[in-house]
């Protein structure tokens, strides 16, 4: 095994420990507040799904209506959980890969605090009906500069770390983080300026909104998630990434294509027809970077996939990677008019969004958090059982959501396409599937409660202090690493 990486030297260990210590508080701050938001977001998701299935429930209270619960759910999921988890992972990865200690921990925490307060005000405003009803940016217009500024501070810190980097080669994860840090301010400011400030036609606002949603996925969730996967997979498998060239191509293809997507959400909509057409073509071309990533991960992990049985980080990350690839194929398929006339504007869209935000991004973030937190808190995850619970409940629920929402979409879309039918009848056709949505969110809420509990234990330093990682299928102390548990380490020593 000439590809296998060298064992770490004592000096390396000291250096890494120093870096981990320097990022400890900002990263933990982002992770714990993100996990809190996640729990709230999944509860809101459950409540909104219940409201969809039983609209007459709690109907005296507008705060508990679907129209106010659902945007609050999506906003807390995106800005509360996903982006903050992303910040934590970005900071830690950037520090580790650039081999620099973080010197502005207080600034980062302050920015994180501003972010949290802004998101709190925004979610409360949206929840009580003061949102601007543009999906994913429905915070009241006066809030975005504050989010923008705190993001700029975080992104600026990442840039500074990158400038101070010590290693010569830039690893692909660093590229993705650097790019995502720069892309978000661009799409966020553009969308907010056009939608909230420059006025203009309402149709175009909807178009810009769709552009923002797709670009938040391709210019932020995808690069940040991939930066983490590109780190976790080779790190745990103990091999270099399969192909440097593929990684490079994947990165640049994403960078070139992502900005064109978005209008495919309005195929056949009231836009000049080349706009949805160009977005749909970009979505189809997006198969290329996604395929490059898939081949690269498969090549890296091949022959060592039994590690997934033991390492929670690898298992969550690989699950996310699979979801990412399925998403790429499904969304390309549904950009054909013959398909989208059945799926467009139905629950299927929600299914696809959850697939990428939760199935891919959140699961990859869980993987990274399971990897990072023991290193920065100097203790091990308390319970393998709870990790197992977290994984199975989450993955089962996500697959349920995606599958049932696509079925619901097909059931609805056929009815919406028939213009002589009653619109409410089309809505009702999805009703049975919505029950599955509610059950799935309930499962995810339980899984996340377990995750939140474990994370808080780690935060307060109450994790296990014994030797050995918390592996999914081994008792603590039985194996030194996932590799040893899977029997690879001995094999290698024998060969050496």
């Amino acid at each position, binding site marked *: 095994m000439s590809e296998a*990486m060298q*064992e*770490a030297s*004592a000096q390396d*260990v*000291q250096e*890494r*420990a120093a870096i981990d*210590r320097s990022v400890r508080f900002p990263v933990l701050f982002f992770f714990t507040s993100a996990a809190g938001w996640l729990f709230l977001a999944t509860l809101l998701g459950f409540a909104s799904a219940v409201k969809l299935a039983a609209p007459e429930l709690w109907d005296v209270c507008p705060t508990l209506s679907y129209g106010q619960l659902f945007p609050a759910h999506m906003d807390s999921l995106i800005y509360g959980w996903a982006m903050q988890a992303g910040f934590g992972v970005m900071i830690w990865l950037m520090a*580790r890969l650039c081999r620099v200690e973080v010197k502005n921990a207080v600034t980062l925490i302050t920015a994180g605090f501003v972010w949290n307060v802004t998101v709190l005000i925004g979610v409360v405003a949206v929840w009580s009906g003061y949102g601007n009803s543009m999906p994913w940016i429905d915070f009241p217009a006066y809030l975005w500069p504050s989010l923008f500024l705190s993001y700029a501070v975080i992104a600026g810190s990442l840039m500074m770390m990158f400038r101070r980097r010590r290693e010569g*080669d830039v*690893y*692909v994860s660093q590229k993705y983080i650097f790019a995502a840090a720069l892309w978000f301010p661009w799409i966020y400011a553009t969308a907010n300026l056009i939608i909230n400030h420059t006025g203009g036609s309402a149709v175009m606002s909807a178009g810009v909104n769709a552009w923002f949603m797709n670009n938040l996925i391709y210019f932020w969730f995808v690069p940040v998630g991939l930066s983490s996967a*590109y*780190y976790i997979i*080779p*790190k*745990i498998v*103990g091999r*270099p*990434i*399969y*192909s*440097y*060239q593929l*990684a490079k*191509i994947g990165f640049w293809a994403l960078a070139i294509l992502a900005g064109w997507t978005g209008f495919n959400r309005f*195929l*056949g*909509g*009231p836009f*000049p*027809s*080349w706009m949805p*057409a*160009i977005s*749909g*073509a*970009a979505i*189809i*071309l997006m*198969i*290329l970077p996604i*395929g*490059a990533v898939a*081949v690269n991960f498969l*090549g890296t992990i091949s022959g060592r996939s039994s590690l997934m049985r033991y390492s929670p980080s690898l298992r969550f990350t690989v699950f996310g990677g699979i979801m990412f690839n399925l998403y790429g194929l499904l969304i390309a398929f549904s950009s054909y*008019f013959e398909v989208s006339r059945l799926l467009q504007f139905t629950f299927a869209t929600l299914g696809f969004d959850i697939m990428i935000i939760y199935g891919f991004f959140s699961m990859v973030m869980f993987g990274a958090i399971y990897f990072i937190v*023991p*290193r920065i808190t*100097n*203790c*091990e995850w308390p319970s393998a059982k709870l990790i197992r619970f977290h994984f199975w409940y989450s993955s089962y629920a996500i697959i349920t959501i995606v599958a049932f929402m696509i079925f619901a979409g097909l059931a609805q879309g056929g009815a919406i396409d028939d*213009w*002589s039918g009653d619109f409410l009848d089309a809505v009702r056709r999805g009703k049975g599937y919505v029950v599955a949505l509610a059950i799935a969110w309930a499962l995810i809420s339980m899984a996340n409660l377990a995750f939140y509990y474990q994370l808080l234990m780690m935060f307060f330093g109450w994790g296990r*202090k*014994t*030797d*050995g*990682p918390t592996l999914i299928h081994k008792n603590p102390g039985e194996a030194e690493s996932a590799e040893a548990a899977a029997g690879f380490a001995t094999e290698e020593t024998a060969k050496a």
Partner: protein
Amino acid sequence: MDEQNSTESNLDYQAGRPAVRDGHDSVRREKPEPVAGGNSKVLISWVATAGLVLLMAGGYFNGYSNSFNSSDTFIYPGYVAAPRPLIDGASGPVEQKPWIEDWMADGKKTYGNCIACHQATGMGLPGMFPPVIGSEWVDGGTERLSMIMLSGILGPFNVSGVTYNQPMPAWGALSNEKIAQVMTYIRREFGEMPEGKTGVVTTEMVKVAREKHGKRATPWAEADLLAIPADADLPGAEIDLNTGKPVGKN
């Protein structure tokens, strides 16, 4: 859990001395930071796939883009537009009202000026004010009628074989549109239009009449009107009753 030991290792850790011997085990056991390998054989298959996907995307764009024509939206072949949506309380789909209904309704409003003499029924007052119904002045050419509307008329004059002496005041102060609407109204509501005639008077027609006859400050006498042929119509295009636009233009 050994309380003493864990406190010590945490102290070490926080003081900048990574406690490699006992705590911070996770950092010790982890592998070096990942690097990228150089397997480039796979690139060939990627490029081959890229060709296929490019073709797919190109075909897609070609099929849906309408050649960058910025004014066209994509319409699926065989697409049938849905009827206008139901509005609460309505029993059927809301139809676009034909233009003529609005035009007549406005004319009826303006006719409110006329009912003191001609009555809401259009019958007039026998012996005092002539009827609009069955009047050859109303049913005939629009030029004569427009002259009466613009400048009024002095008696005596003959309507349907009866002579009337009351003068009719001039209504030239009304806008061309209002005059056109009220003329349309009395012709279609009270008059009897010959086969093939809609009876519609447009704003443009009244404008022509005003240019031709509007300078006269005093009311007409019957002789003045009789000098105009009975079937002389004001020039103007035929109107599509649904759209209010000249026939053949939409």
